[in-house]
């Protein structure tokens, strides 16, 4: 009788799947659960690495959905400066699963939206998106109105999407213990003032992260039962840690916990998948070649390889159902240009 390993394919063995291959030829890293149709709406939220997924989807003419859009005619530079189309709504980075739960609770009216606004030199900052406006808001009312807009847009994203891509980023967080809510950044860093009485550091454990993410997904499915989730873990190390550990050790601990949570959910729930961007960037097999010299930021080459892998694995699993080489709308645009030229030639008699 054969032993259980004898019937396994090449990808199950380190020697054939990794050691005998160039790092660029390593394949089958992801076995996607869901076929993402080009007509299906995908929203992206989470830590900063999530924005690369949105960009890559757009570039390949998939339906990346943005529900909080800039006005027509706003320049690309201004769009970026005001944080439009970075994520599917203007939430800024949602680093932790507890922050995701907070946004979900606000969107579903499960919890009241706080009225806290930070003021500095006559400008007003949203504690839950302290860097969303380049120079803050003109008034507290404007800041609150903008937050309500984003919450409404976040809800629309949940309601309209087929796929919710979420990148888990951090375990470390800052909360207001008096008012029982969480900030995405420590007060006093990007904006606001640190108050040691009400602002407390929390390093979330496995169970807290798992519970918050499970509850968020269940709440989202309560208003959109067809919604499926694709989880990723950000490969970007911590900028700083408030834990007593060395930042390198704290990074490894945080990422390991987040990876374990994603694994648990993807294994146990049919509507959750995990895409291994974290492994592609961080595995020693790739020799750190996808990081910038600061050993923290992921370079464009790394981002490109991760996203190429994402689409390649979809094709490997579901067949060649989209053209990965076709730039967005190029053929349609050139046809339209030809038509336009014809009108002018006729009108100007040439």
């Amino acid at each position, binding site marked *: 009788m054969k032993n259980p390993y004898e019937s396994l394919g090449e990808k199950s063995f380190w020697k054939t799947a990794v050691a005998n291959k160039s790092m660029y030829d390593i394949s089958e890293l992801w076995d996607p659960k869901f076929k993402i149709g080009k007509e299906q709406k995908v929203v992206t939220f989470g830590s900063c690495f999530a924005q690369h997924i949105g960009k890559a989807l757009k570039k390949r003419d998939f339906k990346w959905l943005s529900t909080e859009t800039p006005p027509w*005619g706003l320049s690309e530079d201004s769009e970026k400066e005001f944080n439009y189309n970075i994520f599917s709504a203007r939430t800024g980075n949602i680093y932790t699963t507890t922050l995701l739960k907070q946004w979900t609770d606000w969107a579903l009216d499960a919890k009241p939206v706080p009225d806290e606004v930070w003021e500095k030199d006559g400008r007003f900052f949203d504690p839950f998106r302290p860097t969303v*406006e380049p120079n803050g808001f*003109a008034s507290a009312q404007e800041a609150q109105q903008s937050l309500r*807009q984003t919450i409404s847009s976040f809800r629309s994203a949940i309601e309209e999407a087929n796929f919710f891509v979420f990148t888990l980023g951090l375990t470390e967080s800052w909360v207001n213990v008096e008012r029982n809510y969480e900030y995405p950044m420590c007060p006093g860093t990007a904006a606001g003032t640190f108050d040691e009485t009400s602002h407390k550091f929390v390093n979330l454990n496995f169970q807290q992260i798992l519970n918050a993410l499970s509850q968020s997904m269940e709440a989202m499915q309560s208003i959109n039962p067809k919604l499926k989730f694709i989880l990723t873990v950000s490969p970007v190390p911590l900028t700083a840690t408030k834990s007593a550990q060395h930042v390198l050790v704290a990074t490894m601990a945080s990422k390991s916990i987040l990876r374990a949570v994603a694994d648990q959910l993807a294994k146990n729930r049919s509507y959750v998948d995990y895409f291994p961007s974290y492994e592609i960037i961080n595995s020693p097999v790739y020799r750190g070649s996808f990081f910038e010299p600061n050993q923290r930021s992921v370079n464009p080459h790394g981002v490109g390889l991760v996203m190429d892998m994402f689409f390649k694995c979809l094709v490997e699993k579901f067949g060649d159902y989209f053209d990965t080489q076709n730039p967005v709308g190029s053929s349609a645009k050139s046809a339209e240009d030809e038509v336009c*030229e014809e*009108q002018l030639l006729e*009108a100007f008699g040439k």
Partner: protein
Amino acid sequence: MKVLVLGNSHVACLRIANQNRYQGKTHYEFIARGQGRGGLKGVDIRDGKLFHARPKQFNGWYADELSTFDAFVFTGSATPQQPDQAYSSALLRTWKTDLLTRHDALRLSSELVRQLNKPCIILPRPFPKAGQAEAMSYSTHKADTQWANDWIGEGITYARLPEETVVDRKAQTDPKYLLEDGSHGNELFGATCLNEVDKILKDP
């Protein structure tokens, strides 16, 4: 009255209408370059004259003083729509600056008003062909136009697309006003729009 019309391929219907159908008294001249070749990108107003590094790329060109014209019409783009989301005051200011400095029709209109103090009208391209897609109501287009004129100001007037060219009081064009491609106006559309421009110039 002498009016210069500038734009992309949507200028074509106005020029053909001017030759064959238009019966008004305004003297119109036309300059156009297809959007695929850049439209009005790179066109500038220098010392009261039109400037472009390659003017031969354009159908029609005017090298003399622009002050000989009484007004200017730009066509080929859409009317900005009233925001349906909450935007900060800083974003709204940035948006307006972006439009006036980067959107060719607004950029050139703004410059012409500043240098020559002559009226500038922006005539939108036709709405999509009726039945092609879900269309907003024509009253929304009227409200958007009013809002754009109040908000942009600067002596620039957005023209409403003539109501007779739409179907079911929606922002969709009656096919009889369109070429077969379904997106460009025909001679009838052009003549109707020239009459609309005349109305605005007569009673700004």
